[in-house]
C-alpha cells in the first residue's frame, strides 16, 4: 500500500500516527481486514435487500414457493473459500506476532512496573522515572514488564503494542521508534479506582539528546511530559548516587545470592555470574538458550522452569519477595560481569 493512501486510511479509521515500522505493517493488515469486513457486511445486507425487493409478496395472499435446497457441499465450498481468506490474515498476523515478540539485537532494556495507579521505569544507565518513559529514537528497546499489585496493561497506541503487566511474571515488549516524539501510554487492563488515569508518556529522543539525558540534563520534551498534570505521578526520578549495577551488588549480598553464585568465574552450588550474561546455557532438557535479562529474571522467579544442566535444583524462588527495581539492579550487576565488560565498577 502506498504511503499516501495509508495515511488517508489512518485518518478515515481514526488511527493515531504509526511511530514504528511494525506499527505500519500492522496497519497495512488492519486496512485489508477492515475493508473486507465492511465489504462483507455490505454485500450480505445489500443481497438481502435486493431479494427483499425482488421477491416481495404482492397483496396479502401468501403463495406457494419452490423447494430450493442447496447441497451441503456448496455451502462447505463457500466456507472453505472464506476460511482461506481468514487463514491468509492469520498467516500474516502470526508472522507479525512473532516479530513483535522477538527481542531485537542489542536492545536497550528497561524495567517497567505497574502499580495502582502509575507506571515506574528503571533502566541501567538513566535515572528512574515515574510516568515518563524516556527512550532513544531509532534504537531497539525492550521493556521487561511486571506489576506490583494487580494486573495492568502497558498500551502505546502509536506503536500498536500492548502487554499485560502481571504480578509474579515478567513479560516483555520490544519496539524501535523511528522518529523522536511524545506518545501517550495508557493502562488497558482494569485495575481499580483510578484505572482511567493510569497514564504515562513515552518520549523518544534523538540520540544526542538521549545522551544528554543520560548525563543528567532534562531535555524540553522530557520536562514537558514530566510536568503534564494529566499523568499520574508525573515526575522524574532523582539520579541515584550509585550506579544501578552497584546497587545490584548490594542487593545480591542482601538476598543471599552470593552464597551460591560466585562472581569470579568459579562454579559453586549455582553457576558463576562471571560471563553469564549473554552466554549460551544448556538446560537439563538439552535445550539451549541465551542468558538474557528475561531469562535471568525468569530464573529468579521460577528457578525450576529452565534448569541448567550440571547443577542441583535447589535455587529458591524470589517471586513476590524482591522489588522489581532490585531485580533490575541484580540483572544489571550480572550484566556488568560480562567477559567483555572489564572489571565490575
Amino acid at each position: 500500500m502506498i504511503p499516501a493512501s495509508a495515511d488517508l486510511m489512518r485518518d478515515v479509521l481514526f488511527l493515531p500516527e504509526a511511530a514504528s515500522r511494525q506499527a505500519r505493517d500492522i496497519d497495512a493488515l488492519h486496512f485489508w481486514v477492515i475493508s473486507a469486513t465492511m465489504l462483507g457486511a455490505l454485500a450480505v445486507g445489500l443481497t438481502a435487500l435486493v431479494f427483499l425487493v425482488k421477491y416481495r409478496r404482492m397483496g396479502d395472499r401468501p403463495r406457494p414457493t419452490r423447494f430450493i435446497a442447496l447441497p451441503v457441499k456448496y455451502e462447505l465450498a463457500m466456507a472453505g473459500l472464506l476460511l482461506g481468506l481468514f487463514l491468509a490474515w492469520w498467516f500474516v498476523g502470526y508472522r507479525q506476532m512473532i516479530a513483535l515478540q522477538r527481542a531485537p539485537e542489542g536492545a536497550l532494556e528497561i524495567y517497567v512496573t505497574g502499580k495502582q495507579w502509575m507506571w515506574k521505569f528503571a533502566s541501567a544507565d538513566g535515572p528512574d522515572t515515574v510516568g515518563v518513559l524516556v527512550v532513544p529514537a531509532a534504537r531497539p528497546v525492550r521493556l521487561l514488564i511486571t506489576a506490583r499489585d494487580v494486573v495492568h496493561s502497558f498500551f502505546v497506541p502509536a506503536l500498536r503494542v500492548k502487554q499485560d503487566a502481571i504480578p509474579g511474571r515478567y513479560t516483555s515488549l520490544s519496539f524501535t521508534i523511528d522518529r523522536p516524539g511524545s506518545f501517550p501510554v495508557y493502562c488497558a487492563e482494569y485495575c481499580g479506582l483510578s484505572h482511567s488515569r493510569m497514564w504515562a508518556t513515552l518520549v523518544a529522543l534523538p540520540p544526542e539528546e538521549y545522551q544528554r539525558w543520560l548525563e543528567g540534563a532534562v531535555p524540553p520534551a522530557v520536562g514537558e511530559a514530566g510536568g503534564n498534570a494529566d499523568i499520574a505521578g508525573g515526575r522524574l526520578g532523582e539520579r541515584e548516587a550509585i550506579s544501578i549495577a552497584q546497587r545490584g551488588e548490594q542487593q545480591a549480598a542482601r538476598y543471599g545470592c552470593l552464597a551460591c553464585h560466585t562472581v569470579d568465574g568459579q562454579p559453586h552450588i549455582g553457576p558463576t555470574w562471571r560471563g553469564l550474561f549473554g552466554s549460551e546455557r544448556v538446560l537439563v532438557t538439552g535445550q539451549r538458550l541465551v542468558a538474557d535479562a528475561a531469562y535471568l529474571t525468569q530464573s529468579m522467579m521460577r528457578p525450576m522452569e529452565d534448569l541448567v544442566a550440571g547443577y542441583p535444583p535447589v535455587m529458591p524462588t524470589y517471586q513476590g519477595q524482591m522489588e522489581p527495581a532490585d531485580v533490575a539492579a541484580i540483572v544489571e550487576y550480572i550484566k556488568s560481569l560480562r567477559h567483555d565488560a572489564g572489571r565490575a565498577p
Partner: protein
Amino acid sequence: MAEHAAHFESLARQQTAARFAMWVFLASELLLFAGLFFLYMCYRLYWPAAFASGVGHNHALLGTVNTIVLITASITVAMGLRKLQHGAPRAAFRLVATTVLLAGLFLVVKLTEYGVHIDEGILPGGRGRYFAEGALPGEAAFFTLYWLTTGLHAIHVTVGAGVLLVMAWRIRRGTLRAAQLELGALYWHLVDAIWIFLWPLYYLTGGAPK
C-alpha cells in the same frame, strides 16, 4: 407409585428420560472437578519438586484405606440395586444402608486426616507452622489445592450419602422404584470415580518427603 407423570407417554420413557438426565448432570459435575484438575496440572508443572514433596507428606495409608472404603461402598450400592430390581427389598435395604455407613466411615477417616493436617500446621492459603518452617515454594499451592479438592469431594460424599439415606428409608417403606435407586447409585459411582483420580494425585505420586 406405578403411575407415570401425565406428560410422558409411558413409565419406561419417563425412566429413560430420568436416567439420561442423570448422565448429563454427571457430565456437568465432572466439569466442576475438571477445573481443579486443570489447576493441579498447571501448578504441578510449575512446582514439580514441591508437589512431589507435598504428596509424599500426605498419609498414603489413610488415602488408600479411603479408596478401599469407597470402592466397597460402590459395590454394595450396585448389589443393592440388583436386589431391588429382583424384588428383594430387605436385602436391598441392608446393602444400601451399608453404603451409607461406609460413606460415614470415609468421612470419619477424611476428618481424622484433616485433623492431622491441622496439627501439623498445614492450613489452606499457606498458613500454619509447616509453611513458616520453610516449606518448598509451591507447597502452599499444593496444600491449598488439596484442601479445596478433597473438601469439595467430601461435600459430594455427604450429599450422595444423604440421598442414599433417604432412599434406604424409602426402600424400607416400600415406596422406592429400582429406577429411582439407580439414579442415586449413578451419582454415588461418580463420587467414587472422582476419588479414584484424587487418590494418585494426592497420595501416591510423591517423592521422598523433604
